[in-house]
């Protein structure tokens, strides 16, 4: 078959080209400064790794062929003086001020950007071609899963957040091929249950590369984690801490704190997260229960429309670190959670990094979710806050739990039309035809969704729109 034969070599060679452009591995900072302008400004050691990675891409076999970026900028200097970690409410104002003076995004190398865009376009073409050639052989819906796209997203992560090790949130897509692909690339895994841990372990993921990240765990699952040596697990309340103490005294507990998710579509803080002022008490309980607390985690919520919230959460975590230190617990792990977009569809083209700002760009026709901050915008805030609160060499291990970021763009779903009904739109008269088409595979969990919805949709609204109305929107 034409395409199935062609697609592999297309992808392989595109990747080879990309590797040549980026150096291999793509995001490994090696400390080579490619241009004099940056090197003369500051000593190497004071540059964040992402700057090193961007400014002096490791030169491999294609040495000398990489064009130096034409625009290079150092990260904006930290604007906060005095106490690094002021206490609220001053902190909120300070971080708002820091956010207002937007941190600098990564410099963009046009050649690398072009190569990346070309590679992405080639992959997309290969996927659509595969759909076209597979469709006649299928009676039901099918996905085309592009694992090279997953790898490309991993490279993007490492380029934007080189200090933060991603732990893929398996819940997002527990496909063994995806888990295996990410494991090969060096990712860790955020598992929510025994089943997810078991799957990762079966694929050869070491237990130390897994975090059992669920603040409310089933006791039998904690025992399973103990049996398998998955020591890291999250908690956000006293009961959970005591449960962990009973089931797995050697566990390394990670406290999930509550951060500002008010701009998120899915506000996980409604269910999880300990308020900052409970940190001292929980540290005391941990001692009593014989559980070692090793770090802090949080989740800014899914679909957070405010990129600055990603930086603010890092600052909140810093406060938790300090509160724990005051209680005699030296923490060594920061887990910045998830909430990263899986594609740039709808992303603000200009890099506007708040939802209102993005909406102000127009074009959303009133759809509140038509625009959102890009991953780069989020990463920019995270880098700035980390340089400020958890600088290089601070001894704190940094991790995250991205899910959709890695997998959303990797799947194309082909569905087959199985039925059709032509109706007449009574509102506009007899001539307006309206087709109603049933497709295979588009079965969702809308049924599960409706269980949680109290009122029926208003007449004339689609289910989806009704949901938008029913979900509380804060600012």
């Amino acid at each position, binding site marked *: 078959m034409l395409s199935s034969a062609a697609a592999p*070599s297309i992808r392989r060679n595109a990747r080879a080209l990309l590797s040549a452009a980026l150096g291999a591995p793509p995001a490994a900072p090696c400390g080579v400064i490619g241009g004099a302008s940056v090197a003369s400004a500051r000593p190497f050691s004071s540059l964040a790794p992402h700057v090193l990675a961007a400014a002096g891409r490791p030169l491999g076999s294609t040495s000398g062929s990489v064009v130096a970026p034409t625009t290079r900028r150092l990260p904006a200097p930290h604007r906060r003086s005095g106490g690094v970690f002021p206490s609220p409410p001053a902190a909120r104002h300070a971080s708002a001020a820091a956010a207002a003076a937007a941190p600098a995004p990564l410099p963009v190398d046009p050649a690398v950007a072009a190569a990346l865009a070309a590679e992405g376009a080639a992959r997309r073409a290969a996927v659509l071609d595969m759909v076209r050639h597979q469709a006649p052989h299928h009676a039901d819906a099918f996905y085309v899963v592009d694992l090279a796209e997953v790898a490309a997203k991993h490279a993007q992560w490492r380029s934007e957040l080189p200090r933060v090790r991603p732990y893929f949130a398996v819940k997002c897509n527990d496909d063994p091929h995806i888990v295996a692909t990410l494991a090969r690339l060096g990712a860790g895994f955020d598992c929510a249950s025994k089943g997810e841990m078991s799957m990762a372990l079966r694929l050869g993921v070491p237990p130390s590369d897994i975090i059992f990240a669920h603040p409310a765990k089933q006791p039998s699952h904690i025992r399973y984690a103990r049996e398998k040596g998955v020591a890291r697990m999250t908690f956000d309340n006293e009961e959970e801490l005591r449960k962990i103490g009973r089931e797995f005294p050697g566990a390394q507990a990670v406290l999930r704190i509550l951060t500002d998710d008010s701009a998120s579509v899915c506000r996980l803080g409604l269910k999880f997260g300990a308020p900052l002022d409970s940190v001292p008490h929980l540290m005391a309980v941990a001692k009593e229960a014989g559980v070692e607390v090793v770090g802090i985690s949080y989740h800014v919520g899914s679909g957070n429309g405010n990129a600055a919230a990603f930086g603010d959460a890092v600052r909140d975590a810093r406060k938790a670190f300090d509160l724990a230190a005051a209680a005699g617990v030296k923490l060594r792990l920061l887990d910045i959670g998830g909430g990263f977009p899986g594609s740039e569809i709808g992303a603000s083209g200009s890099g506007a990094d708040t939802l209102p700002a993005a909406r102000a760009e127009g074009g959303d026709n009133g759809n509140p979710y038509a625009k959102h901050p890009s991953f780069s915008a989020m990463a920019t805030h995270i880098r700035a806050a980390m340089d400020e609160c958890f600088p290089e060499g601070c001894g704190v291990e940094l991790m995250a739990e991205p899910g959709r970021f890695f997998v959303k763009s990797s799947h194309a779903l082909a569905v087959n039309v199985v039925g059709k009904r032509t109706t007449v739109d009574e509102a506009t008269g007899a001539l307006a035809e309206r087709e109603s088409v049933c497709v295979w595979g588009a079965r969702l969990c809308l049924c599960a969704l409706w269980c949680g919805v109290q009122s029926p949709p208003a007449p004339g609204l689609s289910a989806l729109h009704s949901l938008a109305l029913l979900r509380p929107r804060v600012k």
Partner: protein
Amino acid sequence: MNDGLYGSFNCILYDHVTCAPALVLADRELNASAAADDAIARISADASTVTVTDAVGLSHAADLAAAAVERAVVRAAEAAAAEDAEEQCNALVMGGDGSGVVGGESASSAGAGGASSGGVGFSAAGSVAAAASMAGSLARAAVARSATVAATPSAMASPAAAGGRVRASVSPASVGAPSRAFGYAALPAATVGLPGGVPALGGATHPTTLWGPTCDSMDKISDGVAMPELQPGDWLVFENMGAYTVAGSCRFNGFPIASKVYLHTDGSVEVQREEVVE
């Protein structure tokens, strides 16, 4: 549909705002796909000009044209029994401003076609397939910037391009024809719930409601999206369907969970079908 459990709450509304298909593959045309491939090869090998206009559809038209270039080149490569499709090519990539050079030796910028603002040339030693891929991609990228592009994989081992050139140039002009020739109609990404639905790419469209297959009425996917008239047997392709989709699938109504076709990173293709409980 898009995000399963989660998505119902946020992703359809948030980052899955595009809930309409990227492509419609007409059943009748799929069945004639071999003929379509021939047509594509003919278009490209003859260095015909595929013209495209319609501001909205420009990038999609570019996709189609670029795909034609890729397929033609790959076909040429196969015909010539290109032996080393995996060999890394030495490539020179000229950015729009002519400043970007990646991993390359000297090569000529493809200036054919007149007002070329971007182009790509590949050395003969390189992989023809990679050249095809890059040519297509760059064509897309360039057209997306509303530019005119000439993609010229040079020194091809191809009977169709005995002179060493396969060329497709894409310039702003009309869109309906190429999509038909390629066996599918392309739709621009649609935004759910936007007044007016999807702008049409030519040809009659109808406001269309897409439903899932269950005998429940809660499985509405999108409403009032302008689409070409669909027929049973047609296929719709939705992109960006990897997050909280399969993970939230269920067998409600006894329908199997969708099977998967994997494109592995090593280039192999694997078809995995869901076991159907009979």
